[in-house]
């Protein structure tokens, strides 16, 4: 299916706005599950995506955790990749050229272990052609504060957001950690810090044990849970956050079908990200876009935006 231009109207209209960023549809790929996009070029039509979010980038290259790094769990998986990435310089030199050639918005996910590091990466990225937005992963440990994750304390989450905003020439999306008591409070804190949008959820911390050997199944002992198993938690958090803030919310967590994606939109998400599902069906994101086309037509919607926050709670 293609966009059909009907006078000035685009039909079916799947466009959504994430602040000043307009996407032709609400489907993005989640950081760390889609490589640097090129890996998927032969498996799907990348140009069908609303946006692509690349693997998290740090200031210096990181080699990641020792294996085993992944383990399957009931309807999900745990990962402790350890944020392996090529570092910001090699990212700009080796990966950006390809990404600049794509006709879709590219969102760069960043991470750091100090506020200075977040700020330095942002500085390094600003001015690089072809970056539509920055997504800030705040689920990383703050090394200077004893390793507490930035995203688990409101004041730190706000401080990171402010620091990145100060240096960024593009919109800033802050990716929230679900490993907190009150995610709405975190969302408000980053909104106060100037975030243009929030995306949630990152993985839920979990673990798996091998009874036979009496050892953890991951070398890192604990890891992040993703996949269908986390969808109900993610939906609930998106619902709560959408009510708490006035900036756009992007839903993530266990989405592997059009129906899943639309449920997140009803709960208040303006757009969604597809993560673990890419591993099982590399063209799932394109399938979801097609499903949305059909849904909008079949349900006679004037635009997919009608669904955002349209949940009826009685």
């Amino acid at each position, binding site marked *: 299916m293609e966009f059909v231009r009907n006078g000035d109207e685009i039909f079916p209209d799947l466009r959504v706005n994430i602040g000043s960023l307009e996407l032709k549809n609400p489907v993005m790929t989640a950081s760390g599950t889609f490589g640097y996009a090129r890996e998927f070029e032969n498996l799907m039509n990348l140009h069908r995506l609303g946006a692509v979010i690349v693997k998290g980038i740090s200031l210096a290259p990181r080699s990641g955790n020792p294996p085993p790094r992944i383990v*399957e769990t009931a309807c999900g998986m745990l990962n402790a990749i350890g944020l392996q990435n090529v570092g910001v310089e090699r990212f700009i030199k080796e990966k950006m050229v390809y990404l600049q050639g794509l006709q879709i918005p590219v969102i760069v996910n960043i991470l750091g272990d100090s506020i200075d590091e977040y700020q330095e990466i942002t500085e390094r990225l600003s001015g690089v052609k072809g970056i539509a937005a920055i997504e800030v992963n705040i689920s990383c440990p703050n090394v200077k504060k004893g390793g507490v994750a930035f995203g688990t304390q409101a004041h730190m989450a706000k401080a990171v957001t402010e620091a990145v905003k100060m240096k960024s020439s593009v919109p800033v999306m802050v990716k929230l950690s679900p490993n907190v008591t009150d995610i709405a409070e975190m969302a408000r804190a980053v909104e106060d810090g100037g975030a243009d949008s929030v995306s949630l959820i990152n993985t839920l911390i979990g673990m798996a044990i091998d009874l036979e050997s009496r050892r953890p199944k991951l070398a890192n002992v604990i890891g992040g849970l993703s996949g269908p198993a986390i969808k109900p938690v993610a939906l609930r958090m998106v619902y709560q956050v959408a009510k708490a803030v006035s900036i756009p919310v992007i839903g993530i967590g266990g989405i592997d079908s059009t129906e899943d994606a639309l449920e997140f939109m009803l709960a208040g998400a303006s757009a969604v990200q597809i993560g673990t599902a*890419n591993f099982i069906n590399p063209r799932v994101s394109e399938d979801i876009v097609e499903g949305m086309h059909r849904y909008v037509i079949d349900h006679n919607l004037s635009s997919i935006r009608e669904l955002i926050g349209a949940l009826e709670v009685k």
Partner: protein
Amino acid sequence: MTQYQEKAKITRFEQLSENIVRLTLYSPDIAAATKPGQFVMIKAGKGKDPLLRRPFSVHQTTSDGHLQILFKVVGRGTDMLARRKEGEEISVFGPLGKGYKIEKSKPACLVGGGLGIAPLLLLAKSISRMKMDTSKDVIILGGRSADEIKALVKDFKQFGIKVLVATDDGSLGHHGFVTDVMKNTRLADDSVVYTCGPEMMMMAVKNICAIKGLQCQVSIESVMACGMGACLGCTKHTKDNRYVHVCLDGPVFNAEDLKWNL
């Protein structure tokens, strides 16, 4: 390298022994593109549990679009796959990874143990077709018992390459390990050893190669989520403590490049 996601029909189901199954799938795009040592990712069941695809080496391909996998039932995914019926469709994704590098002008020694025999059949076929002279080549296959490998030994014999066998219980061929057979076989100095099997076995093969000064290519395993470089979950250590990704850089490696810590 082009990869495909195909709905493949099971055209033949063979129960080779109590827990070893061979599936023949009609998967023309993948079959035509596969090189020896490459693998496919297969969705064992239909729903979300188990969630991830399972990796399997390509055992054999045919020019009429068929592809075979050979697997042992070890857990939920393989159990589900072993319950599939002829005529059913399964989702196959591949071919993936880097396979064996066939040295056309050098004698080949293939060493397979247990399910590690799987990728060697396609390799043996390719070697028999690519090389003018296979008189110095040898295939050494090992398993627990005759039951486990008898049917396979027959398949390997069709290429006219010498086949030697070892079983743990002595019910077929040499009573003992493939490595015993390997030690007792006169191999030319420039032989290339291609191996796949349990890690213990491959390490022993690698050690023999080191002593004899032979090049050794091993096919290794790791847990995998995506099989195509997106999750970065399938790392192994190299001997200088860097990481490689089994699905992208392998599954076939030069044995001496890896760190062996058993």
